[in-house]
């Protein structure tokens, strides 16, 4: 598989009271067109990842909103897979090109979350779990990941409270070096440990924030990408699914869907975990990043903590993780996150990530999870030689 990345565009992530769902989406769309140096009428299809438009803005039909924004009449679809909506949209774009139906596709992700109360956002996000079995009992998303953290840290006590906090400290270190990041501030282990408890053992600084933002990427067929001088290719795309609820899961100490997705994507790309230069992973909560590095094969199950003992996951470390700042620092506009990850991977492989640039980056991986692990999507990005 080989699909070229022609252009990328991203809004500033954060509390964007100045812009609504449509404006955020448009901003990212226009930026990716400009970066690709193409015009809107060259787009054959659009896919847009979005989760909460219906419940937070009363706006569904976001697929057609994206084509309307560009005054084109191309086929346009909204893709929803909870927090993995962006990566699932990316995969649909890839499949459209691979099928021969489209030569150039625009894939977007957008979320407008700060117009309503935190409680309303909490309720919306819980739609990614199992409403009957979990939501009805008062579970929240931090609650679900707290249940995973408790089970994991009981089975693998080597993952201490301090090492878990390191995930957030490192992501804030990277975020401070990323201009489109929501929280450009470095923090310490104490910041995490002393923060307000959200769902024991997870404090506010173990949790990704509520964020507005949009991201857009232009994909092209291998031939077209070559002709237009694309520097980055997507060479692997894998998706895995699992039960909506944790109670139905085979394990509470791993996210199996991530492993399934990684296996498929690596096989398609013809690579092994050892060849990966860096990864953008789904750190919706600190514990999720530990499970992500294990799912991607950078550590064995139960040994993910080892990568956080010696700064191995910093941008200049052995296996840089979340140079964008991750969901924690960069922000988590749910539908946009998967596309943001793809944009960060593209910037690293283009060599334009400046203060957080990974040296000799050849292969980058993105890992995006929906719900507490009911969906996971992994993509492999490669520098064009």
């Amino acid at each position, binding site marked *: 598989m080989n699909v070229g990345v022609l252009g990328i565009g991203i809004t500033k992530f954060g509390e964007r009271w100045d812009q609504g769902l449509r404006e955020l989406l448009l901003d990212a769309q226009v930026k990716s067109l400009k970066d690709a140096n193409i015009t809107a009428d060259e787009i054959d299809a659009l896919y847009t990842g979005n989760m909460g438009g219906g419940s937070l803005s009363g706006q569904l039909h976001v697929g057609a909103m994206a084509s309307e924004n560009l005054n084109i009449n191309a086929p346009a679809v909204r893709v929803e897979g909870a927090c993995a909506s962006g990566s699932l949209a990316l995969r649909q774009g890839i499949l459209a090109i691979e099928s021969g139906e489209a030569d150039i596709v625009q894939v977007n992700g957008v979320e407008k979350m700060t117009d309503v*109360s*935190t*409680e*309303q956002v*909490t*309720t919306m996000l*819980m739609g990614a779990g*199992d*409403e*009957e*079995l*979990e*939501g*009805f*009992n*008062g*579970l*929240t998303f*931090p*609650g679900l990941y*707290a*249940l*995973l953290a*408790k*089970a994991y840290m*009981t089975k693998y006590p080597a993952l201490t409270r301090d090492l878990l906090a390191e995930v957030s400290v490192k992501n804030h270190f990277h975020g401070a070096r990323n201009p489109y990041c929501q929280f450009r501030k470095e923090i310490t282990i104490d910041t995490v440990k002393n923060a*307000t*408890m*959200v*769902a*024991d*053992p997870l404090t506010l600084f173990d949790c990704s924030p509520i964020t507005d933002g949009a991201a857009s990427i232009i994909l092209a067929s291998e031939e077209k990408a070559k002709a237009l001088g694309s520097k980055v290719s997507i060479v692997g795309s894998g998706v895995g699914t699992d039960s909506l*609820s*944790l*109670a*139905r899961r085979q394990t*509470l100490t791993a996210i199996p869907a991530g492993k399934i997705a990684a296996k498929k994507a690596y096989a398609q790309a013809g690579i092994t975990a050892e060849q990966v230069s860096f990864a953008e992973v789904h750190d919706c909560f600190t514990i999720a990043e530990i499970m992500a590095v294990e799912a991607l094969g950078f550590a064995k199950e139960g040994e993910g903590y080892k990568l956080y003992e010696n700064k191995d996951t910093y941008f200049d470390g052995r296996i840089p993780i979340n140079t964008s700042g991750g969901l924690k620092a960069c922000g988590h506009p749910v539908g946009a996150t998967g596309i943001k990850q793809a944009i960060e991977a593209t910037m690293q492989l283009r060599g334009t990530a400046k203060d957080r640039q990974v040296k000799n980056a050849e292969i980058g991986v993105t890992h995006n999870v929906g719900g507490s692990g009911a969906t996971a999507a992994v993509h492999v990005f490669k520098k064009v030689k």
Partner: protein
Amino acid sequence: MFRDSSIIRWRNYSDRYMLEGYGCTNCGKKYFEKKGMCVCGSLDFNNLSFCGKGKIVSFTKIHSGPEVFQEQTPYCVGIIDLDEGARITAQIVDSKYEELSIGQDVEAVFRKFYKSGKKGVIHYGTKFRPKF
């Protein structure tokens, strides 16, 4: 919206009120929730009643809850393995959080969940407490 609906909850009153579940007639696997297909591929299930005793598999204390649970926050939620073999998610009550532990024996109790909608319909269901 959906949390205000009495019908959504009424449809599930047998498992919410009586802790009823399903057993696969082919392989015997037991489920608390309604389900499309057993892991063995069978679609034939018998109704069964759980005795309401089980052990905590994992638990947490939620300090920031959704809208309808505001007046109960903070509260404890856990995943529980029922003695018959099914696994369920439920609130754990009548205990200090600090005194809960993984592996602890718990038993089902019938409790109020939340009030919803303009008419203030009260939703009930099963929670768990440490075994007496």
